[in-house]
Structure formats: structure tokens, C-alpha cells
């Protein structure tokens, strides 16, 4: 097990991502952040908070659970649903930024796009992730990336966040390539 990203690096990455989102979208007025539970939701909260500090105005933020749109439901026991909370201004015509902790095969984001499609029609959908570990199985890419982590397929990337796990860290587990 190796430490790929210690807490201070995570904090800096999230600040940088917050600035990048604001830069790309010319401010937060039309932005809706949607974190994908569980850890994406916490990251979305942090990014929203950072953006509010930078801009001085409140930011629309919520969560988007993708369980019902997963393409691998039949492969394991039924999963509990996580909450989906859409902020007051909704998603219609807005620039939605999906936020997740790790981008891997891309299937989670594919499901998120389907889930989002059933809620409304955003003006644009962008993706911010803390870690991109490669090995895409679908044509999905992130717009904002905290860190690119090359990994082998046998390894796994573990993200810990203080809100859930007591500390901030990104770890890589498993055999070296």
C-alpha cells in the first residue's frame, strides 16, 4: 500500500479545481454542483464552500445517486439507494458539474448522465474528479482532475476523507505493475 496523495496535496488540488471551474464557467452564477455519493458528495460540499469563499456568493450544490442506473446491478446483491438532492434552481439550462472521487472505467459517470437526463436538460455537463486512474471502458473524460494516477488494472485506489474515514489521503493498494 502506498500513499499517492497526502492531505495537503488533496487540499491544494481541490482549491485549484474550484478556481478552474469558476474560470471555465465565468463565475458560479449558472453552476450547479452535483456530488455522486458517497465521497463525491463530500467533495462537492468542499468545492462549493471553496467557491463561495472565492466569489462571495452562494453556490447551488446537491447530490446525484446513480444506483438505479448502474449497468452492473445483476452482478451482486441489491444495493441500498443513496439520497439524491437537487438544489432549488434545478438543472434545467444550467451548467452541471458532476463531482466524484475516482474516475476509472467511466461506467459510474455514464450512469450519472442517464440519471441526470431524467431530471432535466442541463445546458452543459462537466466532470470534476479528485483522481483519474486511467483504464477507461467507455468514451468518458474528466474536465477537471485533481491528480492523474497511472495504475495497473490489478491495483485499487482507495480514497479516505476526514468526514467519513477520519483522515484525508489517497492510497494505492495491490501488486506493483
Amino acid at each position, binding site marked *: 500500500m502506498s500513499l499517492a496523495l497526502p492531505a495537503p496535496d488533496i487540499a491544494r488540488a481541490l482549491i485549484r479545481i474550484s478556481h478552474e471551474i469558476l474560470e471555465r464557467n465565468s463565475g458560479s452564477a449558472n453552476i450547479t454542483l452535483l456530488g455522486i455519493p458517497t465521497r463525491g458528495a463530500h467533495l462537492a460540499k468542499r468545492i462549493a464552500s471553496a467557491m463561495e469563499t472565492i466569489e462571495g456568493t452562494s453556490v447551488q450544490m446537491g447530490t446525484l445517486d446513480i444506483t438505479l442506473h448502474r449497468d452492473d*446491478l445483476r452482478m*451482486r446483491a441489491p444495493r441500498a439507494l443513496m439520497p439524491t438532492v437537487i438544489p432549488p434552481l434545478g438543472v434545467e439550462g444550467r451548467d452541471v458539474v458532476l463531482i466524484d472521487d475516482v474516475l476509472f472505467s467511466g461506467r459510474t459517470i455514464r450512469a450519472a448522465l442517464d440519471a441526470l*437526463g431524467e431530471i432535466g436538460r442541463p445546458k452543459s455537463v462537466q466532470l470534476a474528479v479528485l483522481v483519474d486512474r486511467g483504464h477507461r471502458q467507455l468514451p468518458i473524460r474528466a474536465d477537471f482532475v485533481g491528480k492523474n494516477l497511472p495504475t495497473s488494472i490489478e491495483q485499487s485506489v482507495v480514497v479516505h476523507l476526514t468526514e467519513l474515514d477520519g483522515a484525508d489521503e489517497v492510497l494505492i493498494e495491490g501488486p506493483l505493475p
Partner: protein
Amino acid sequence: MKHLLSINDLSKVDAISILDTAQELARVSDGPMKKLPTLRGRTIVNLFAEDSTRTRISFEAAAKRLSADVINFSSKGSSISKGESLKDTAQTLQAMGADAVIIRHSASGAAQRLADSKWMSGSVINAGDGTHEHPSQALLDAFTIRKHLSKGADDLTGLRIAIVGDVLHSRVARSNVLLLSKLGAQVVLVAPPTLLPVGVESWPCQISYDLDEVIANVDAIMMLRIQLERMSEMYFPNAREYSRYFGLNSDRIRAMKAGAIVMHPGPMNRGLEITADAADGARSVIVEQVANGVSIRMAILYLLLAGNQEFAETGVSS
């Protein structure tokens, strides 16, 4: 969990997870696009050997919102007529590749016979079997009660709920006594002695013959439909006497405590067990029960069918 035949199939944790799942799914039903792809490609059969429009439509809506294919067998339609046995019907459904059968039948135990038999291999969901149980009704009742009265708790601890009417013949009463007590509520059955089953003292609830004594102290009151045929079987002398002692009218509504709600599984005999004022008044959540029914049934179908049956025995994963 492969089948849902009785509330006894559910632990307290299972029941709460159904309520929580329904809560999330209710949001879907409120949104603009009511459909989810989750059960696409799955075939669900409604096997209704007993007339029931509302339960069948509720299950059908639930299945379709999850994109499953729905096939309806009803007593007035094709196969279930006098002469075609449950076994023959089940084998036909198996040949059609039914992943799940939702069965409503006049014989107690019909759902269990279907599940235990080797006639078909899909999941069996009991939508009401004779006078035995109606698990999805109890779950939607519990969901409704929780939504209005639990103040954020995930169960029903501390609540007191009265179920009033023909308990003897009521599968709704049996399932509710089991579920509401499992979720921590206190249940009291109110009925004339003729309509309480032998051995009811051993059920996890209290008994009373006096509605007026009970009504001021309950958080929710669930009125059961009284069938007019019962009069010819002498369970009570006539409709007037029944309404006088056990009917929910405006006076009794006024006697209820603040915030208490009025429920009814439907269909109602307006004027017999419940007056129009009570059914349509501010305390009534009867219409909402119907909407909640779809969310609960979506949750049941999701939890029984979306995952892999092999792993299903171990319960819900997260």
C-alpha cells in the same frame, strides 16, 4: 430475499430498508421523467385471481416505472377461471419466462404454495392471499405513518396505532399487526368480539371492544372495510349498530389528539365504517396511501429483482 410472502419474511432491518428505498423512489415519481431503466428486460406477471383494481394498477405502475415488462392475468380475463388450476397457470407462466409473479388470490396460503412448489422458478410476491396477509399494504401503511409521525426516526417507536373493524377476515390487519409492532409501535385492535379471531391474545398487540375509549390516545387510526355479507353470517345485528359502535364519524374525529391521522386500505364503504367527513377531512391520508403504494411496490420489486438472486440471501449491500 427471493420471495415476499409474509411480513415474517422481513427482519426489522429489511423492513426499514424497504421504507428507505421507497423514500428515494418517491422522489423519482415526483420528478418530470417517471421512468427508470433498472428492471429493463425483466418480465413481471400480475396473477390476480381475485378482483382488485387498485392493487393491480399499483403494482403495474411500479413495475413499469422500473421499465419492466408487465403481463396481466386477471380472473375476468384469460386463464384463471373455474377449472384451470393454480398449478397449470404457474407452469404456463414459467414457460413464458416470468421473473416474478405478483399473486392475489382468495385462498390463504396460495402465494406460499406457489413459492414452495416446483411449478415455477421466479420470485413470488404476495399481493393478498385470502385472510392471511397483504405485506405490501402494511409496508405502505408503515411508510405513511413514518412520514407523518416519526419526526425523523427510521422506525415507529413510541407510536400508538389503532386498527378498527373486521379483524377476523382481514389480511391487512394481520400484516399490519406484525409489521407495526416489529417497527416498535404499539398496536391496539378494536372490534366486536365476533370479529376477533380465536387466539388473538397471543398476537403482539392489545385488544379493545370500545372505540371511544381508545380513540383519544392514538397517533393513527386505520379503519378496515366491513363487508355487508358479514351481516347474513350474524357477526353483528345490522349496519346501524355496527356504525354506532365502530364507525369513524365527525364526533370521533374531534376526539382524536392533535396531529393524529386517519387511514383506510380501501375500498371504503362510505357511511358504514367511515363517514364522508372522516374520509375527506384534514386528518385523512387515505389518498396519499395510494401514492405511497406505488413507491413501496417499486422498492419491493427493486430489492427482489434488481440484484443477483445468488447474493440476495445475504441481504442488501451498500
